[in-house]
């Protein structure tokens, strides 16, 4: 190890001045930075544009889900858990290749969540405080071990914390619905001024359904999912890109692969030790006690140091040997501990209540169940929530605890909020890993996702002796899964009335849930869709 070079005081000051000229508004400027930021904002824009485009009959499903198919953590974990290789998933190789060449350039240049975190440099609001110990960096590596061991045991729950799924879920369930409500409230207010009718309708035709839905959709626990996202942003208060440094599992996976990176940062011998690079580095990986060297597992290739270096001693050179294991990379003991914890957790999942008997309303998207068993949802679903985004009725919702703790973030149909549209097969088309099979519309219409039961105690004709029959009308099946029995009964006033009583034909019903959605009984519907009958006996 070389000693820190001793520089004369005046030299140090001139260097700092020269370097600081590159700072503007607290951030580094320069052609490389401009280039990087252009790429970052463009990628974020494309991500959001693809999100906006994700709706029934919106964009090409295989274009919409490109970001998810490029995510190597998501794709590899799915590959391990499902033991299937999908042609479409080879897109992830692009990011893997990028990492082998440029290290964690994904994090610094492409990751939309990373860009958002860069947009909130909250730590600058506070007085400079020392960053948490480097030891914390191990969390993300342990996270990777846990995710892959769990995947090996057929569980993908923790992909909930993949940065892309996290962002897409928040956009779907929280941010976009909130935006829709705000725009609608303003429009509703302005609609009362007749002068504005023309422009308002033009605006509406432009914005709906292109950007916002025509009919509002509702999500459960939008605030809860937003809180996770806000938490990730607020961690920036402690230190820049706290999430990327210490927590992000994708960052951890790419970081390990980054140890093989061909392009790596090297500091020249002429370095005068001005510490400008150490101060500016967003991941704090430049170590002044180690000749200002950095760890390629942590470096996001943002090039801030390159621009800020006053002596031109920061270079990016090609190296063809893997980087050494660092103190905060998990050692064998720690890895073993992570494996042990994961095995125990999966064992607990497998001994939890939903594994023995499913919750009665765990209705999955069409085609997900195999032999009516809900296994696939756990071994295949990457929690990306693309299906939830495209569902036109808002019936698909991310599970909180409906499917047990292990089912966190997986899609379930909540018929009281929206039904499975008989004219739609969008969820299967958009699923990046075919956890929901890409069925044609005719095939999708045959999928039994649930079974409706009438609660005769709540049903209006059954209990109140008054005509209703909304469920029968709404039933989309050509042969109607709800049949009517004409009866002569005593009415509430003691007189004889002729009524039609609804009955569900179990062998016809596909469980789309429109009957439950439209049931006029307030509160719990008088007709409810339950999980389908399991064909294979235990």
């Amino acid at each position: 190890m070389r000693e820190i070079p001793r520089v004369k005081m005046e030299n140090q000051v001139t260097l700092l001045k020269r370097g600081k000229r590159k700072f503007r508004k607290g951030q580094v400027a320069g052609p490389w930075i401009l280039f990087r930021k252009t790429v970052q904002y463009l990628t974020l824009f494309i991500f959001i544009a693809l999100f906006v485009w994700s709706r029934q009959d919106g964009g090409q499903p295989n274009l919409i889900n490109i970001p998810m198919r490029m995510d190597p953590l998501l794709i590899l974990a799915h590959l391990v858990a499902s033991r299937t290789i999908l042609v479409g998933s080879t897109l992830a190789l692009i990011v893997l290749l990028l990492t082998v060449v440029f290290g964690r350039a994904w994090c610094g240049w492409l990751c939309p969540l990373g860009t958002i975190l860069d947009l909130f440099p909250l730590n600058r609001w506070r007085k400079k405080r020392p960053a948490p110990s480097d030891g914390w960096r191990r969390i993300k590596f342990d996270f990777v071990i846990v995710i892959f061991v769990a995947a090996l045991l057929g569980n993908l729950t923790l992909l909930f914390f993949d940065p892309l799924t996290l962002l897409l879920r928040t956009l779907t369930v929280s941010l976009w619905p909130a935006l829709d409500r705000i725009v609608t409230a303003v429009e509703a207010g302005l609609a009362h001024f007749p002068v504005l009718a023309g422009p308002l309708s033009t605006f509406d035709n432009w914005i709906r359904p292109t950007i916002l839905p025509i009919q509002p959709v509702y999500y459960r626990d939008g605030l809860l999912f937003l809180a996770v996202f806000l938490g990730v942003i607020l961690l920036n208060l402690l230190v820049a890109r706290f999430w990327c440094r210490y927590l992000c599992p994708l960052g951890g996976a790419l970081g390990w692969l980054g140890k093989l990176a061909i392009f790596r940062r090297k500091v020249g011998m002429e370095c005068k030790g001005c510490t400008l690079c150490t101060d500016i580095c967003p991941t704090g990986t430049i170590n002044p006690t180690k000749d200002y060297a950095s760890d390629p597992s942590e470096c996001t290739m943002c090039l801030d140091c390159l621009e800020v270096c006053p002596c031109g001693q920061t270079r990016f050179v090609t190296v063809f040997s893997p980087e050494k294991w660092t103190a905060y990379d998990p050692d064998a003991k720690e890895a073993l501990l992570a494996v042990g914890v994961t095995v125990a957790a999966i064992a607990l999942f497998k001994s939890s209540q939903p594994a023995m008997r499913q919750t009665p309303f765990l209705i999955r998207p069409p085609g997900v169940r195999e032999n009516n068993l809900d296994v696939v949802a756990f071994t295949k679903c990457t929690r990306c929530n693309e299906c939830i985004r495209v569902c036109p009725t808002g019936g698909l919702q991310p599970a909180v605890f409906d499917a047990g703790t292990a089912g966190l973030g997986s899609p379930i149909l909540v018929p009281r909020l929206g039904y499975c549209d008989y004219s739609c097969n969008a969820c299967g088309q958009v699923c990046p890993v075919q956890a929901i099979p890409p069925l044609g519309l005719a095939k999708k219409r045959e999928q039994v996702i649930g079974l409706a039961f009438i609660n005769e105690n709540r049903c209006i004709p059954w209990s109140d002796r008054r005509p209703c029959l909304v469920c029968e009308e709404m039933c989309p099946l050509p042969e109607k899964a709800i049949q009517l029995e004409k009866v002569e009964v005593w009415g509430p006033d003691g007189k004889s009335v002729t009524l039609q009583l609804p009955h569900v034909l179990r062998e016809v019903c596909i469980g789309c849930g429109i009957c439950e959605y439209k049931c006029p009984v307030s509160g719990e519907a008088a007709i409810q869709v339950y999980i389908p009958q399991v064909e294979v006996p235990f």
Partner: protein
Amino acid sequence: MGKFTRRDFLKVAAAGAGAMTLGAILDACGQVLPTSLPSTDTPIPSNQQPATLSPFPPDIIPPATDTVPAPTDIPLPTPDLVVTRGGEPEALVRRALAALGGIEKFVPSGANVIVKPNICLAYHTYEYAATTNPWLVGTLVKMCYEAGAASVKVMDNPFGGTQQKAYEISGIKEQVEAAGGVMTNMLSYYYVPTQNPSAVVLKTVKVYDDILKADVLINVPIAKQHSSSRLTLGMKNLMGVIQNRSALHINLGQCIADLNALIKPQLTVVDAVRILTANGPTGGNLTDVKKLDTVIASPDVVAADSYAASLFGMKPEDLDYIVIGTAMGLGRSDLQNLNVQVIQLDA
């Protein structure tokens, strides 16, 4: 922005609070503006009992000619109701309106017109007779413009599937836009709570604002079987312009009649080019569809429905909303006393 100072924060917070308050105020402005509508001066029977339901004719519908009242010998200036048969949808509707005295009678020059077809779902194409015939709607749009209408909007709020998809699948979007009409998105915030003074049950109802403001409303239902109301025709078709329709089904006959006391289309054109005879209103089975190549047009929605019932082998008295509607003075169902003109195009 080097630092986000406390002052900056307060500014942002104040701006945000201001914007939210403005939204709330604007929102509140709307609540006090229920559109008042002229009430009918007909006394309303207070104790309407739904008509006793007779069993639905099990299989085949008698040929329409059997139940049609014979056309009157002396042609009166304008008939109350015109039935055209045996031709393409465009010819059927043009001929029917010509017999009614021309579209100009209903659509004054410069009028803002809304055509309300039945686009109740996004599941099937028009051949399944769940949605109104697209050429019928397209022709009506064309004719409105020929009469000098300022704008023609077409809208419905489907119960199954999205509006956008339903507009497309039904084929109505294509025909309407070819005719220069506008397929309008029905937006949630545009429903206005409206007093319905002549109603028995449906005293206040949220109605789509455009419908209330239109100069002319043309009701273009398709004739379909429907379990709770037995048939969905013109009067029932108007349920597409209100919010929260499911709740109406408990006393459906009265609710439909009440709604018709509030919303009065200037013209009703019943599409019976194809009718859905069973498993309505959704359909999906071509064996339930019957091609009749018939159009019924009348300024009186009750009369139009009364005649359309005959296509299914029913009498007006079989449909409780017609019985209630007649009693409420919304129109006439006494077909034998009406001046009905039947025109056979291919004869």
